[in-house]
C-alpha cells in the first residue's frame, strides 16, 4: 500500500523550473532514499510535500488523499513529519521544549509524556541534556534532536532532509543507525541525501534526481551495482 504517492509534480520558483514532473512513491514501512547532486530539486520535493513550497502541477497523495498545497501545519496532523535541512532546531528553547513543540499537535498530555519517554530512551544523549538550550548542543546532537522532535508527532511517514550534512563520518553512521532503527519500528521513511553511498546501503529503494527530474529508480541493491550510478554518485567504479 502506498503511503505517499507523488505524481508528475511541477514546481516553479518564479521563472525557475525546480521540479519538472517528478513521480515518486513510498510504500508502507518502506525506507526510500532520494539521491542526487546539489540543486537537483530534492529539498524542493520534500518542501512541496509538506506545503512549505507551492506546487504548480501534479499531485501529492497521502494514503490516496490529495494533499498538494495544504498548509504545513495541516500536513503534520495527517501523520507526516518533516525533519528539515540544516536541522532547524529552536536554538533558544531547551531540548525538552524543542521535543514538546514536536508534539504540538497532540492534545493528550499522557501521550506526549509517553512519546517523550520513548524518544529519550531512543536518544539517551538528549535525556541528559533536556534542560540545556538547543543551540548549545553539538552538530550531531542537534541532528538527533531534530529527528527526535520529528518523532514526537508520532508520524507514520518521516521525511529526512540531509541528516548527514556537516557531520563527522562517525556521527553520520550513528545517525543512520538511528534512522534504520526508526524504520524498523514501523515508520515509513523518505530520506534525501547527498551521501549516496550510505543512503543506498540502508534504504530499500532509491530514486536518483538530476536537475528537476527523476532519472533512475530501482531497488538500492541494483542501484549500488550499477556502473553509471557508481561513477556519478558513489565515487567508485
Amino acid at each position, binding site marked *: 500500500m502506498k503511503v505517499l504517492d507523488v505524481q508528475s509534480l511541477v514546481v516553479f520558483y518564479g521563472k525557475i523550473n525546480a521540479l519538472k514532473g517528478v513521480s515518486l512513491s513510498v510504500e508502507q514501512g518502506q525506507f526510500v532514499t532520494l539521491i542526487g547532486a546539489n540543486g537537483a530539486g530534492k529539498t524542493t520535493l520534500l518542501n512541496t510535500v*509538506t*506545503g*512549505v513550497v507551492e506546487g504548480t502541477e501534479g499531485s501529492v497523495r497521502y494514503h490516496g488523499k490529495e494533499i498538494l498545497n495544504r*498548509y*504545513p*501545519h495541516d500536513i*503534520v*496532523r495527517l501523520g507526516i*513529519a*518533516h525533519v*528539515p535541512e540544516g536541522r*532547524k532546531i*529552536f*536554538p*533558544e*528553547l531547551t531540548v525538552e*521544549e524543542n521535543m*514538546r*513543540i*514536536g508534539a*504540538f*499537535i497532540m492534545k493528550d498530555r499522557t501521550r506526549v509524556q509517553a512519546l517523550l519517554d520513548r524518544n529519550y530512551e531512543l536518544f539517551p544523549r538528549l535525556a541528559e541534556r533536556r534542560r540545556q538550550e538547543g543551540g548549545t548542543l553539538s552538530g550531531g546532537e542537534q541532528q538527533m534532536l531534530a529527528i527526535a*522532535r520529528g518523532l514526537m*508527532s508520532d508520524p507514520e511517514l518521516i521525511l529526512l532532509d540531509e541528516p548527514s550534512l556537516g557531520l563527522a563520518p562517525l556521527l553520520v553512521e550513528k545517525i543512520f543507525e538511528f534512522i534504520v532503527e526508526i524504520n524498523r519500528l514501523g515508520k515509513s521513511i523518505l530520506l534525501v541525501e547527498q551521501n549516496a553511498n550510505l543512503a543506498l546501503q540502508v534504504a530499500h529503494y532509491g530514486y536518483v534526481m538530476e536537475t528537476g527530474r527523476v532519472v533512475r529508480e530501482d531497488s538500492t541493491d541494483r542501484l549500488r551495482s550499477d556502473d553509471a550510478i557508481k561513477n556519478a554518485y558513489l565515487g567508485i567504479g
Partner: protein
Amino acid sequence: MLAQQIINGITQGSLFALLAISFAIVYGTLRLVNFATGSLYMIGAYTSFYVVRHVSSNLFVSLAIAAVVGFVMGLILERLAFKSLRGVSRIASLICTIGFSLFLNELAAVIFGRETRVMPSVYTGTAFRIAGTNIIWLQVIMILVAGVIVIGLQLLLFKTKMGLSIRAVSLDYKTAGLMGINVDRTISFAFGLASACAGVAGVLAAFYYNSVFPVMGTLPGLKSFSAAVFGGLTSIPGAILGGYLLGVIENLAVQVISSGYRDIVGFIILVVFLLVRPRGLLGRKIPM
C-alpha cells in the same frame, strides 16, 4: 523634590514599559517595528473616555474593555495591513505602520474631534508618603497594573502552549509551521496581545493626565520605541527595564536640566544605543 521626580518617573515608566512591551512582542514575532503602537494607546484612551461616560467611571472597567478593544484592533490591523505584506520587503510593512498610525490619528480627530477631552480624576488620595513625598493611589495602581500584566505575560509565554508557539514562531516561523503550529493565527494572537498592552497603557495615561486627544499617542509611542531599543527590542524584560529607566531618567533630567528638554532625553538614548549597542541592554543578537 528628588523623591517626587523618581516616583513620577516610575509611574510614567509604567506607561513606557507597557508600550515598550507592545513594541517588543510585535518585533519579536514579526521583526517589525509597529509605529502604530502610539495610536493603539490613543484608542485605548478614547475607549476609557467613552466607558467613563456611558458605562462606568471605574478605572478597572475601562482597563478590561480597552484591553479587549485593543486586542480586536490589533487583530484587524494585522489582518488588513500586515498579513498581506508578510514576506514582502520589511520596509513596506514598516512604512505601512507609520501610515496606519497617521490614518488612525486622523480618523480619531474626525470621529472624536481634535479638542482635548477631560477625564475625571480618580484615586487621588494619598496612599503613603516616602521621603516627604505623597504617592497617590492612582500611581500605585498604575505600577501594580503594569506589574500584573508583565507577570501575566511571562506566565503566558513560558507556561502555556500558546506561549511556546509564540516563542517558536518568533525564532523560526517556517519550522514552527512544520511542527503543526498555525503561524498566521499565532502571529495574529501576538499582535492582539501587544495591542491590548498598548490599549491598557492608554487607559492609564488617560486617567493619569486627565486628558484625551487624537495625537496623544505620538510622543509616548516614539519615546517608548526608544525605551524598547534601550532595553533590547526583542526582550520583554529588556522592554520593562528600558521603560522604567526612561521614565526615571526623563524626570530626573527635568530636575537637573530643565523641563523644556524633557522630550529630548529618550531620543538621545535612542541615538546613542543605536550607535553603540544596537541590541540594547538585554536584547539578543538576531539574524536579520
